[in-house]
């Protein structure tokens, strides 16, 4: 026994010693992740930029960065693709533990807050210039990163969900060539859409996302008159949210018109489903895969209008040298130029986050030719920042979409599911409450 105690003591002492020296210091300067600088850019200040964009969108990021690198002599930005939004967040956290820090990272609607709350982000007001800062960016999207007058990130690949529809299938079903105005209207179209055959079976009306579907559902809850939370007070178990869940449950299990999909946009592009709610940032990708005419429109309302903004903003890490910070800021200033913001939109479908980008000739021409690209911009007036529990509650999004999976897969009653989700969200809210009240309110 005494032996055991001694061992335990030694173990704890070892742990405590490590704890004393191993953690992040808010103002320490950390090294940069490794990489390689091409010869022609040697002797410049290197900026490491962690990005979650692959495929079509990744190529657009690469081009923007290449344009920046060739536009001046002092800074070299190196894009490092890190996987999904969640992967970027995990890797930034892991890097900080290892006393390393990228200079810039794209952080999602639900991950930047945790870095901000824990003093890992550099406040940006000090870097603002005439062409970079408030007034330059679209007000709502810029404002989401402003807490108590200080900016903690700037919008980049911001989005809202929009409704995509299969125009060919709609024509075959004899439906009007537009998205439904309300969810009830979509429901009334189920029989017509079911008559259309696709891939050897009748067309399903809508597919719900298996992972991260809670983002689209945030808007759906508002449309049915509810909310995930008021501040951090959880309301997902109340009438509006339950009604939204019940509408979706009926579509899946009572009507057989909807289902849970691993990738709704892939299924949509393959013609398996009539409509989806998907990020405007998927526009280019869907358009390049679909072999039919793709239409797009506002997400339907029900008792109210309202959709959630989402997507990525760029944060600057705090644990980097002043030189790296200044260099990183010049890249952010470059991205804030209207022509760059507009070009990014034309290549991806993401919202133009810079006001003057909407006046850009190329973008205007694209919208005139392909009105789909204008949908999210027009819909922006209905967009708002998400309920606080999803934004600030760690893992709140996973708890909510796990609940949705139970409704989609198991025909679980939304009232029951959301009561249990609410219990978990309350515990999550409790954890973050102190920091939230101290830093946000």
């Amino acid at each position, binding site marked *: 026994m005494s032996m055991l105690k001694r061992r335990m003591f030694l173990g704890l002492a070892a*742990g405590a010693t490590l704890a004393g020296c191993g953690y992040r210091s808010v103002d320490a300067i950390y090294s940069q992740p490794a990489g390689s600088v091409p010869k022609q850019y040697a002797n410049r200040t290197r900026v490491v930029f962690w990005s979650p964009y692959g495929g079509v969108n990744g190529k657009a990021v690469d081009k923007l960065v290449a344009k920046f690198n060739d536009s001046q002599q002092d800074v070299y930005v190196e894009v490092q693709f890190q996987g999904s939004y969640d992967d970027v967040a995990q890797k930034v956290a892991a890097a900080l533990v290892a006393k390393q820090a990228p200079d810039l990272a794209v952080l999602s609607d639900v991950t930047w807050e945790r870095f901000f709350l824990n003093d890992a982000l550099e406040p940006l007001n000090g870097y603002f210039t005439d062409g970079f800062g408030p007034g330059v960016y679209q007000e709502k999207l810029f404002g989401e990163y402003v807490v108590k007058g200080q900016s903690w990130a700037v919008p980049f690949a911001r989005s809202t969900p929009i409704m995509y529809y299969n125009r060919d299938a709609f024509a075959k079903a004899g439906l009007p060539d537009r998205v439904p105005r309300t969810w009830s209207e979509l429901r009334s179209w189920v029989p017509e859409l079911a008559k259309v055959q696709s891939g*050897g079976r009748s067309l399903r009306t809508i597919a719900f996302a298996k992972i991260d579907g809670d983002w689209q559902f945030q808007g759906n809850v508002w449309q049915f008159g509810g909310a995930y939370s008021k501040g951090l007070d959880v309301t997902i178990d109340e009438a509006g949210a339950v009604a939204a869940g019940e509408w979706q449950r009926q579509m899946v299990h009572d009507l057989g018109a909807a289902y849970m999909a691993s990738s709704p946009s892939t299924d949509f592009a393959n013609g398996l489903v009539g409509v989806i709610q998907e990020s405007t940032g998927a526009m280019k990708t869907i358009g390049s895969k679909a072999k039919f005419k793709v239409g797009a429109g506002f997400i339907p309302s029900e008792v109210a209008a309202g959709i959630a903004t989402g997507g990525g903003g760029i944060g600057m890490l705090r644990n980097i040298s002043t030189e790296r910070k200044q260099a990183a800021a010049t890249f952010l200033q470059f991205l804030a130029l209207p022509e760059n913001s507009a070009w990014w939109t034309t290549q991806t479908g993401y919202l133009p986050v810079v006001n003057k980008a909407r006046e850009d000739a190329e973008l205007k021409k694209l919208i005139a030719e392909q009105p789909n690209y204008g949908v999210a911009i027009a819909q922006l007036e209905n967009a708002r920042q998400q309920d606080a529990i999803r934004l600030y509650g760690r*893992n709140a999004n996973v708890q909510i979409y796990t609940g949705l999976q139970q409704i989609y897969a198991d025909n679980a009653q939304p009232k029951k599911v959301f009561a249990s989700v609410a219990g978990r969200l309350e515990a999550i809210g409790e954890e973050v409450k102190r920091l939230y009240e101290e830093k946000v309110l």
Partner: protein
Amino acid sequence: MTVVDLPARTHPDERTIADGNDQRKRRRRREYGLFALLVAPNLLVIAVFAYWPIIYNAFLSLTDWNMIAARPKFVGLANYGRTLTDPAFHKTLWITVVFTGLIVVGSLVIGLALAFLFNLPLKGRGAVRTIAFAPHILSGAAVATIWAFIFDPGYGLMRALIEPFGAEPPDWMNNSDWALPGLVIVYLWKNVGFAALIYLAGLQSLPKELDEAAAIDGASTWTRFRSIKLPLLAPITFFLLITTVIGTFQAFDVIAVMTGGGPGDATTTLSWSIYNEGFQAFNAGRAATLSIIMFVILLVVTTVQARVMERRVHYR
């Protein structure tokens, strides 16, 4: 592992001359020095990469830390109390036990059957052995991607196979009743070849005399299997049992790619919940707690298995 020849023990009667004794002592000290020198690199690597993370993990399990905050907050045993009383954790444990049980039993039974088949003097058995073993070498993520395609209700192979018979295939990975069996099938497909190969090696090294003697005495094939071959294969079964239990408990790759622990929590095993707490929720403390619990469970299971087998298994 480094193997070192230690000085052979000498019988006390041989120690007659005091001088020789001193010399031997010196030699022994020198040899221990050499021993320490030779094992040091290995020991250091093990200490840094195996023991240190375990100790550090045990420390983290006593804290509340989101991995970004400057330092962890010490909370004592609160994480353990919270985890052990959480109904979601109980469900996770149950799923893990069912999942592990099915895969262990399945791998051993099917593996043994395949081994007998491969042991028959049939044409082309070399090729078939290779094919059966191949999935074991593939990376889990690749296997998961292949099976995600096979199981896909929209475009999958399974659909092409089942639909001609007029039946609708289940939506394996998006249905709570089918997701876990689906994962078991995938892991079996991946594991069985390994079990078969090990069993085959065992079968081929069995002494023929016993079997022949029993055959001459008129024992049926089944009796010879049950009373002679199976007991002789016990050390192999024991080895496979331990490695499969540990491997399955830690299974993560296929789950991550195919189900993400869902739908709902239908495939949330202990290892997935560690990932979820750690890397999705950034709750390092609770993830560490779950890891320690898994560590203890595996330690107990392995110890019990070893004790039981010590009595039953006969190494030749």
